[in-house]
């Protein structure tokens, strides 16, 4: 990733998984398997495909952005008023796979309108923590 990751609202979770990337890839891309660990869906591993995840609390509107089999899967994730991007990255290791999921909101391509706007979300959180600390 580049500096853009510091300019967005993002979360990331990493996990070492004792299975090869191709097995994990199937679980990430086959709808009946996705449903078992994530949500009901009409996913297809085709760039540009629009689909949604459905749960009892509502649905998530998505569009496929990147499909690199056994390596990278990325789709938009539009929920709770925030259009974000979810990216899965699979890296083979000696014992299996390093699996990473990252979700980022307020993408860099939405950030161009105001000259000199370079204040990162990480710094918001830093400032916020200071404010909350002062408020005892």
């Amino acid at each position, binding site marked *: 990733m580049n500096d853009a990751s510091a300019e967005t*609202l*993002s*979360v990331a*979770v990493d*996990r070492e*998984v004792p*299975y090869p990337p191709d*097995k*994990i890839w*199937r*679980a990430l891309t086959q709808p009946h*398997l996705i449903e*078992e*660990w*994530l949500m009901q869906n009409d996913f297809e591993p085709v760039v540009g495909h629009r689909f949604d995840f459905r749960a009892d*609390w*509502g649905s998530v509107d998505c569009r496929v952005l990147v499909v690199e089999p056994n390596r990278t899967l990325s789709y938009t994730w539009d*929920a*709770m*008023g*925030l*259009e974000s991007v979810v990216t899965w990255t699979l890296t083979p290791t000696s014992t299996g796979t390093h*699996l990473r*999921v990252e*979700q980022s*909101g*307020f993408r860099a391509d*939405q*950030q*161009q*309108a*105001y*000259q*000199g*706007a370079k*204040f990162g*979300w990480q710094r*918001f*959180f830093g*400032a*916020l923590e200071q*404010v*909350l600390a002062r*408020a005892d």
Partner: protein
Amino acid sequence: MPNGHDLLFRTLADPTRRAIFERLCRDGEQTVGALTARAGVSQPAVSKHLGVLKRAGLVRDRHAGRQTHYSAELTALAPLSEWTSRMTGFWKSRIDDLEDLLKRMDQ
């Protein structure tokens, strides 16, 4: 994933509006005129954005003579921290279930 963040996210989704808010966070209290001078959009547009930010609780205003001074209300960003902790927890638990599935799957 309950709702409740919509207003905050929708307010900050507009890049010009978010940039105005960022400037208030970075540089402190500002008048509409000072914000407009660097915004690249008209003063009415800046005022409109400030109104939206105020309704979302992200800025407060202070009247002094004929000038109105705006400042950022950082505590209003708390839901963003909640979003990150909630989504981190969400993905951790989904990956737990993914690992359970992988155990059951055929090679």
